[in-house]
């Protein structure tokens, strides 16, 4: 058996199931490893006692003969998911030390399948950011180059998985927050169809966009995790889709009609939006993506040119809708019931102002201001309403495109991971870097990032795959087929491998 930290989710579950190791041993090993690489800044909270109690319970289930794909496997949660066993901060000073009395549905569902919770992972404050440099608890380093960002907002999750601190982590994606950090750190991550995973227990950023998903080393692990995470939760989340749970692990193993051993993707039509391959994308990223697409052709897929004409509009549309929802969602953090309250204030309004000014970071404050502005009387029609109209058109563009293809592919981000601090003072540069992921989120479609090679500075590049609603199985199948033929996903950053 390889070292525990070298094993992916399914491998580790198999090793524990075969009693080559135990859940307790795996948890202890990974907790120690997380401490060893604490300087990455990926982890925010541990509770060894709670973790080991869960691991012992998993070992007992195994001793009783139970076997499930996640039983005994340690993983950790983005600090956007509320948890009973660990504090939940959402990367914000506002919630420093906040203890939730309940677990998020996604956390609960994974625990029910026997996954063991190692702790909580750093992220951009309230999931707002694309470099994980907006966390109140410090930036996260990219294990491939610690002077670079891991992407965001699920940067702690991405860095922890890439650095082999744990086989998998949960993430959330509002405008690319699973896909982009997965791309920047060479791991696999999937954002499912909006409503596929319950939002109950996710600290809300933008309600109509937020979606949970798994981040792991490969598509097969993601499939096992998503099988546990996804499913209806209509009694607790009204936007949860009443669509039966699916077995994605079965989906990736199911051969396509017309498939052969050499050409497992025979008949698969992959659409390439012209807007994703333009001058805005840096050449190193483009060449890795094109090479991956050539591999897809070898596997039997057909490449089809398509257009998503409103791709550029997705940036202003997203940066109106998401801040609008955020400005309202973050109103509950007022210093009254929980969270930070200023030590000194003269009256109620002063208490609100000081508590919020002291505890929200600059990016969060910026988005609250943008959101408040676009919802204000006299501006609502021109901004919010117009943005919602364009959002519907963007969704329609995808539906037109899916008449000609089964999946859409392109880069996840225009560049590889940038240097920590490089874009800190330039919010617009950060926003523009989201161009390839925003439209998918606005349309509510599932999308994923698959390791596709390396670009400038030896940094990982992800290939983005986008499917139609509820086509997570098809996406994961296509990613899995690619990973059977390539080994980009099994490369580990030097210093973090075996």
């Amino acid at each position, binding site marked *: 058996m390889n070292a525990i930290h070298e094993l992916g989710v399914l491998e580790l579950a198999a090793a524990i199931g075969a009693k080559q190791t135990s859940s307790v041993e795996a948890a202890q090993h990974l907790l120690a490893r997380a401490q060893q690489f604490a300087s990455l800044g990926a982890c925010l909270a541990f509770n060894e006692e709670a973790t080991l109690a869960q691991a012992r319970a998993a070992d007992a289930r195994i001793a009783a003969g139970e076997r499930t794909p996640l039983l005994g496997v340690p993983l950790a949660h983005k600090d956007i998911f509320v948890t009973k066993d660990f504090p939940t901060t959402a990367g914000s000073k506002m919630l420093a030390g906040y203890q*939730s009395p309940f677990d998020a549905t996604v956390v609960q569902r994974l625990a029910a399948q026997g996954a063991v919770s190692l702790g909580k992972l750093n992220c951009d404050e309230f999931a707002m950011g694309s470099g994980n440099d907006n966390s109140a608890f410090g930036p996260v380093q990219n294990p491939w180059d610690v002077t670079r960002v891991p992407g965001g907002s699920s940067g702690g999750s991405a860095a922890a998985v890439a650095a082999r601190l744990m086989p998998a982590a949960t993430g959330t994606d509002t405008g690319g927050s699973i896909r982009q950090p997965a791309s920047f750190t060479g791991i696999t991550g999937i954002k499912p169809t909006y409503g596929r995973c319950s939002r109950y227990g996710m600290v*809300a950023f933008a309600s109509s966009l937020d979606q949970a998903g798994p981040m792991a080393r490969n598509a097969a692990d993601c499939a096992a995790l998503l099988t546990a995470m996804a499913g209806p939760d*209509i009694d607790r989340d009204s936007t949860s889709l009443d669509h039966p749970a699916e077995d994605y692990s079965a989906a990736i193993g199911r051969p396509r009609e017309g498939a052969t051993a050499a050409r497992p993707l025979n008949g698969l039509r992959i659409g390439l939006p012209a807007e994703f391959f333009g001058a805005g994308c840096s050449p190193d990223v483009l060449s890795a993506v094109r090479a991956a697409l050539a591999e897809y052709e070898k596997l039997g897929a057909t490449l089809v040119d398509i257009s998503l004409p409103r791709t550029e509009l997705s940036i202003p549309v997203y940066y109106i809708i998401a801040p609008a929802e955020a400005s309202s969602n973050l109103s509950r953090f007022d210093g*009254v019931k929980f969270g930070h309250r200023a030590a000194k204030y003269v009256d109620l309004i002063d208490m609100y102002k000081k508590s919020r000014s002291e505890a929200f970071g600059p990016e969060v404050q910026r988005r609250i201001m943008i959101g408040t502005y676009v919802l204000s009387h006299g501006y609502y029609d021109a901004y919010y309403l117009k943005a919602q109209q364009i959002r519907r058109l963007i969704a329609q563009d995808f539906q037109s495109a899916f008449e000609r293809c089964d999946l859409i592919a392109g880069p996840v981000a225009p560049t590889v991971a940038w240097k920590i601090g490089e874009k800190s003072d330039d919010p617009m540069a950060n926003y523009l870097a989201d161009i390839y992921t925003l439209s998918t989120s606005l349309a509510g479609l599932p999308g994923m990032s698959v390791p596709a090679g390396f670009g400038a500075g030896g940094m990982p590049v992800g290939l983005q795959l986008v499917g139609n609603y509820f086509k997570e199985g098809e996406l994961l199948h296509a990613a899995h087929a690619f990973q059977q033929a390539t080994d980009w996903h099994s490369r580990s950053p030097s210093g973090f491998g075996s």
Partner: protein
Amino acid sequence: MSNTSKSLLVQGYEVVIGFETHAQLATQSKIFSRAPTAFGAEPNTQACAVDLALPGTLPVMNQGAVELAIRLGLALGSHIAEQSVFARKNYFYPDLPKGYQISQFEIPVVQGGEVGFFLGDEKKTVRLVRAHLEEDAGKSLHEDFIGQSGIDLNRAGTPLLEIVTEPDMRSSAEAVAYAKELHKIVTWIGICDGNMQEGSFRCDANVSVRKPGAPLGTRREIKNLNSFKFMQQAIDYEIRWQIEEIEDGRAIQQATVLFDPDTGETRAMRTKEDAADYRYFPDPDLPPLVIARDWVEQVRAGMPELPRQMAERFAREFELSDYDATTLTQTKGMARYFEAAALASGKPKLAANWVMGEVAALLNKQQVSIDDVEVPGPMQLAALIRRVSDGTISNSGAKSAFQELVANQRKSLEDLAQYLADVDAIIEAKGLKQMNDTGALEKIIDEVMAANAENVAQFRAGKEKAFNALVGQVMKASKGKANPQQVNDVLRQKLQ
């Protein structure tokens, strides 16, 4: 709307009133959570994670609250929207846990409709603009904490239906009559307990005045009127105040005002200048509220007969006046009681008089509702009415028997025959039986005529009044047991 010949002008001004009423819906649990809605619990014991707006919580619509909204819409002839939208009303206040209230803004669930009622004998109709679902906020407690405020979130998330009228009312009396009618309807159809002291039925009155024919004046909104008495006082004060301001050459500023029952005055809380921008937008946590037509039909099938329909039926079937029929349908309990007594006695007019007379007086005296067990039941009343109408007892004898029924509660019996037997036993025991024996009556009459020779002489001299005095004396002498009609007949005979 219906401006009749009767002038309602106050000092030459026409009064214009519109209402916004918050009716707390009688659901067991809150509108977006499963916490209970019970009133009067220890602070913050009826609030769950969703009501406290803990991070990660989300609202889930309570179907029961929607059904109650549908009932109101059906009762008032409104359109029930196939699709309505929940919106967030954003503002900061310590008792508003999320920093926004979930309400309905552009597309409410109940649209249009009207409330009809009598103001005296004049039929009035007030049009509704809408009724929308929303959640209540918590309560700030300023009294018990020195220099600080306490927050009780028990009420946060309680379902409300805000019922908004057109500015159709033209006097405080009409406004109060509207509010009473609406109160009757919401309690009648069981969507609200109507308890005004506990805040289950809160009215805001928008009041303005204008010269007849002029455009609408600037309105001031009187908030939280929690009794019909204060409502009338507050509106009357507000009308006088506005007219005085205008007469003194001052323009009315749009404002929200509160009524102080101690001073009898209204005072401004805030003016339009400091009105908040609520930044309404559709709540992304809640999909549009879709109401299938078959759901509406299901609710319709379960609707009770409404007070107006019932009053019309009473007037028609029981040949009652509109006034009596309306009086008897003030509450569902009263109407049920009357109808049972009317049918069992076969004497609806007598039953109506008894219910509006003795029964109403008793309820008023005891300050109880007709549904309370202390009141003799409709079958007992019917038995009593039977005995009046068949001549066994006089009306005054029946009143004594009624008091006996009040004083000694009876267990409920099988059928009317048993109730009759019970009433007969009372009549027997108290000796209330009407004197139908002509011989005995004649003897009494002879005695009375002998003892009141003066009256006899006066009557024979043409003074009709003297006859009544003699009747009274006979009734007195018979201890009320004589049949008044018979006394009349025999006495007249003897006096001729």
